[in-house]
């Protein structure tokens, strides 16, 4: 068959194949100049090149898959040289204790497998010939002389044990048993023993996670939280089919298929979706909703549980450098990416951004990325920093003394990331919004007695920056609380996604659970209306007072997943209903529950909101709830909430629903301030530079701080909102503070006399009171630096610092370089007994999970050199900018310095090219 692209001209036949190779970065050095020259002159071939390149990117962009936890554990066990499971002290690796049986089975299976796998496939005859069982057996038999296999197995295990410094205990029996059982497999000869001796036991590799028992956990949560509060006899939801009598039975969480090996089939490694068991475990509802809800999640293929967000992120990664690749002809792939009706790959304009550059990127884009590491026309050093690393840079107070931003009360990122990690994935970088990590954790601030807000400030030396004189500044805002009795009646319009995708992982069941929880907290004069949407939207329930609870519950019972996702129509109808039944005396809110993958009607936040805002009446607030890991379109729901006067939360399991709808119902629904903005002004006499942690997309122009037309964050009753900075204190002040420098000497720039007891600046909060619709401002001075260390600082500051450290580690932030997981774990450990013990435990768990997923992969020489080049360029630009600022008298010295930078950059570039060339030769 002719492979020639019909669109190619006749003269291009000879280039046809080369175009493919060029698009794949597989062109030889001899062919390259010719094809490049040709591409420059021939648009048909450029199109072909673009298409193939895009096709290759599309092929590569599918969902990433990972081994299940069991399979990972199997590899870990193999790597650890079969450390006897029971010998590990439970405190160091609690997972082992419970999974010892599983582990020994794994070892046996593995040893069996290893016998088969002993030979290098390259040495083996092509597998096509002779892979029958007998052949395999024969191969094994000849590969090494038989020996006392059981003793060699035992000695191997003992070796492993001795190496890992563990006491030999009474499990020798099980060792020999193990050995003899696997004797056939152990005829692997001395060579493998040799190799095993050289292997150190793996510590941080994935180990078998104790068979998660969410059923028990969630059951407890429910009993704790609901058991007493659901009025006796109130069965919000009744059995809908013949499933009665099974109410309290919890579906075993084991694998349904009982598949062939520990590697496990569909879903084996994924912890069961807790909502399944919660559905069945409701104490007061014998039978739960529907037999379907009780289906074990393990019957799903793992890919069904994979996040759509992950796919998007992966695609975005794939396309990240595409901007660079399109130099020769632009737009084609871009059009493919943004074509109407086609999913948008990246939601952010990451093209040309260089962070997250990995070894996986192909050699072609690597070649080009080198040229991108320089200052672009019109780019300031700070802009360049963001393009290189995607983090806020340290800003010198010489250039900038203020920081202005809208408060972000969202917490979705934290629970989303938690869900990623618990399901065995590292979250994509864009899913990690550091400020939401901090806000998801409590600070236990006292509510203000007078006024709407109390502002708290803390300044402690930074533990994780790795720099001296750097402090963490924590600014906390606590909104006044409203007693449950004082609250106005609620008028809630629930907009519920009933599309087919909501069936996955029992998302819709989780929504039903959440609503039932919410209903228990409502008062008789509150009203609830329900709009559902799938392919079309419809009104399921007109506004109904909660006094008619059974009517509402009956409507909720009817929810059934089916069809596509017309979020647009659902929201429009929801707002229409809310507007029509607006209660001026009450709190009017639209609550959207969706997995966020709008695929019918308008599918972007802007388009949906444009539609909605037209019909909406002011005074209607919006809450969006992302449901289910699978394809939660985080960005869409966040943007909707952001622009629709509301907030976004992520429901990963029932306990999160309890938190949102039961414990924090006031802070979910009672807005006390709109457009809350914060401005921090630093004193340049004491602060040299600062960086804001997180809030990358919430910055507001300084001059807009008092422009009340600018939309910013909404704050609800009882909310705690936190903003964190790292500030670099003038070293003279710091020296004085530590009693090293004696009297403070004046700084070189002739600024004000440093005074360590002076406040480092001031913070102003500006907001619009919802009740009175007036704008108010409140101010507070920032603290002065002290010598206190992190250990002696308040627990809530330590917790925030740890949350930041974890988020930045996960983001692979430029600023996480000095953060070591072990130190982080230590600081978290110091919190394990205080009032934040459960939070610190959870952060530790997340850190451990992330470590197992390969947080901080080993970086290649190429990527490391690339980082050096980025740093070089950034520092050079800063020097250049400084030179421009200071004027001509210093230029000579600066020129000299810049020359040095340039020389270093040149040599780095050469190194990079040499590395590529070496690679090219090898490939």
């Amino acid at each position, binding site marked *: 068959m002719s492979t020639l692209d019909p669109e190619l001209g006749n003269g291009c036949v000879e280039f046809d194949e080369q175009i493919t190779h060029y698009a794949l970065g597989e062109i030889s050095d001899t062919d390259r100049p010719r094809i490049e020259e040709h591409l420059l002159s021939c648009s048909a071939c450029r199109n072909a090149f673009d*298409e193939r390149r895009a096709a290759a990117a599309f092929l590569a962009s*599918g969902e990433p898959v990972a*081994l299940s936890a069991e399979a990972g554990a199997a590899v870990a066990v193999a790597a650890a040289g079969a450390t006897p499971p029971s010998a590990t002290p439970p405190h160091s690796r609690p997972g082992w204790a419970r999974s010892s049986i599983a582990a020994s089975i794994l070892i046996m299976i593995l040893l069996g497998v290893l016998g088969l796998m002993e030979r290098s496939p390259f040495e083996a005859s092509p597998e096509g010939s002779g892979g029958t069982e007998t052949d395999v057996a024969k191969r094994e038999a000849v590969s090494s002389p038989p020996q006392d296999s059981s003793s060699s197995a035992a000695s191997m295990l003992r070796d492993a044990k001795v190496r890992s410094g563990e006491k030999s205990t009474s499990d020798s029996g099980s060792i020999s048993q193990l050995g003899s059982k696997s004797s056939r497999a152990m005829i692997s000869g001395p060579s493998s023993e040799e190799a095993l001796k050289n292997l150190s036991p793996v510590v941080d590799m994935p180990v078998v996670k104790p068979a998660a028992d969410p059923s028990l956990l969630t059951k407890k949560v429910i009993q704790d939280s609901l058991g007493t509060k659901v009025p006796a006899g109130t069965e919000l939801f009744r059995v809908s089919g013949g499933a009665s009598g099974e109410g309290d039975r919890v579906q075993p969480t084991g694998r349904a298929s009982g598949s062939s090996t520990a*590697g496990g089939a569909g879903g084996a490694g994924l912890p069961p979706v807790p909502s399944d068991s919660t559905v069945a475990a409701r104490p007061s509802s014998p039978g739960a909703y529907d037999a379907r809800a009780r289906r074990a999640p393990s019957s799903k293929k793992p890919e069904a549980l994979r996040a759509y967000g992950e796919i998007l992120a992966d695609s975005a990664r794939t396309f990240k450098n595409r901007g660079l690749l399109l130099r020769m002809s632009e737009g084609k792939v871009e059009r493919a990416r943004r074509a109407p009706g086609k999913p948008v790959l990246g939601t952010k304009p990451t093209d040309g951004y260089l962070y997250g550059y990995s070894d996986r990127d192909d050699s072609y884009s690597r070649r080009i990325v080198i040229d991108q590491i320089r200052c672009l026309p019109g780019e300031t050093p700070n802009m360049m920093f963001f393009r290189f690393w995607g983090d806020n840079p340290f800003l010198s107070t010489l250039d900038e003394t203020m920081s202005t931003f809208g408060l972000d009360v969202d917490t979705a990122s934290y629970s989303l990331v938690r869900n990623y990690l618990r399901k065995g994935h590292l979250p994509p970088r864009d899913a990690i919004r550091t400020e939401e990590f901090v806000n998801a954790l409590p600070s236990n601030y006292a509510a203000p007695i007078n006024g709407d807000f109390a502002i708290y400030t803390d300044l402690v030396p930074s533990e994780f920056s790795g720099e001296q004189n750097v402090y963490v500044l924590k600014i906390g805002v606590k909104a006044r609380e409203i007693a449950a009795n004082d609250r106005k009646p609620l008028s809630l319009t629930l907009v519920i996604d009933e599309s087919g995708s909501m069936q996955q992982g029992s998302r819709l069941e989780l929504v039903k659970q959440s609503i039932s929880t919410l209903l228990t907290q409502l008062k008789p004069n509150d009203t609830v209306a329900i709009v559902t949407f799938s392919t079309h939207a419809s009104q399921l329930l007109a506004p109904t007072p909660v006094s008619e609870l059974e009517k509402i519950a009956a409507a909720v019972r009817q929810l059934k997943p089916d069809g596509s996702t017309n979020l647009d129509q659902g929201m429009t109808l929801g707002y229409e209903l809310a507007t029509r039944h607006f209660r001026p005396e009450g709190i009017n809110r639209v609550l959207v529950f969706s997995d966020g993958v709008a695929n019918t009607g308008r599918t972007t936040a802007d388009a949906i909101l444009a539609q909605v805002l037209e019909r909406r009446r002011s005074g209607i607030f919006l809450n969006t709830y992302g449901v289910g890991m699978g394809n939660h379109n985080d960005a869409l729901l966040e943007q909707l909430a952001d622009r629709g006067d509301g907030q976004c939360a992520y429901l990963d399991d029932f306990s999160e629903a309890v938190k949102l709808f039961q414990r924090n119902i006031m802070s979910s629904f009672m807005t006390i301030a709109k457009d809350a903005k914060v401005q921090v002004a630093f004193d340049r006499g004491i602060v040299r530079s600062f960086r804001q942690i997180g809030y990358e997309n919430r910055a507001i122009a300084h001059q807009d701080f008092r422009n009340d037309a600018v939309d910013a964050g909404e704050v609800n009753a009882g909310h705690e909102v936190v903003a964190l900075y790292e500030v670099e204190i003038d070293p003279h002040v710091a020296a004085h503070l530590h009693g090293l420098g004696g009297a403070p000497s004046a700084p070189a720039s002739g600024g004000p006399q440093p005074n360590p007891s002076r406040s480092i600046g001031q913070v102003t909060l500006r907001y619009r009171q919802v009740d009175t619709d007036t704008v108010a401002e409140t101010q507070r001075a920032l603290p002065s630096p002290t010598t206190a260390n992190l250990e002696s600082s308040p627990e809530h500051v330590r917790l925030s610092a740890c949350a930041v450290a974890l988020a930045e580690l996960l983001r692979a932030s430029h600023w996480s370089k000095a953060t070591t997981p072990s130190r982080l774990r230590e600081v978290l450990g110091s919190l394990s007994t205080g009032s934040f013990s459960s939070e610190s435990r959870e952060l530790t768990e997340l850190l451990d999970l992330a470590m197992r997923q390969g947080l901080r992969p080993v970086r290649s020489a190429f990527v490391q050199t690339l980082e050096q080049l980025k740093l070089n360029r950034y520092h050079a630009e800063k020097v250049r900018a400084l030179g421009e600022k200071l004027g001509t008298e210093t230029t000579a010295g600066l020129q000299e310095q810049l020359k040095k930078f340039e020389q270093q950059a040149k040599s780095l570039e050469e190194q990079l090219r040499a590395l590529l060339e070496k690679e090219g030769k090898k*490939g």
Partner: protein
Amino acid sequence: MSSRELGDSPFSEPGRNGLSEESLSAIVAEHQSGLLRYARQVLGGDASRAEDAVQEAFCALVRQPDPAATLDSVAAWLYRVTRNRALDMIRKESRMKHREGQVAVAEPIAPDESFEIAERDREIQRVLETLDPSLREVLVLKTQGNLSYREIARVTDTSLATVSQLVHRGLAAVARGLRAADVL
């Protein structure tokens, strides 16, 4: 292979024979996705058997007594082992007829049961399924496995020239298919 280049091999660290913990984590993290997807292609979409094959490949790597046997490319080695395991599975279950040197995929890849896999991904999958299995295999190795032509040649036991031709035919066909489907 007489001239071995150990450039990227995790075993090549001086004074070290075994596979370090970090290297292993890094290798698993880097290759698991590509290997699993590849194994699924070979095994007609069977995710569970694909995982078995990949797991065995990693275990084999861990137990590989002679580091040099992985030659210069751990990736190629892993893909090769995975392929062999997958072909063994196919053979053992006599589920499909198998011709020498070619991966037979008898049934189309099971369509993903999830509802929301985007239209685009379905198109790609559809186009991929229309390809000759030999084209599909090299294309998957190239784009998802990120292997070089030379590594692919080693994995599939063919010549470099054959690989480059197969890849070209495959990619050109996919590009055509995607254009016809209005994805490109």
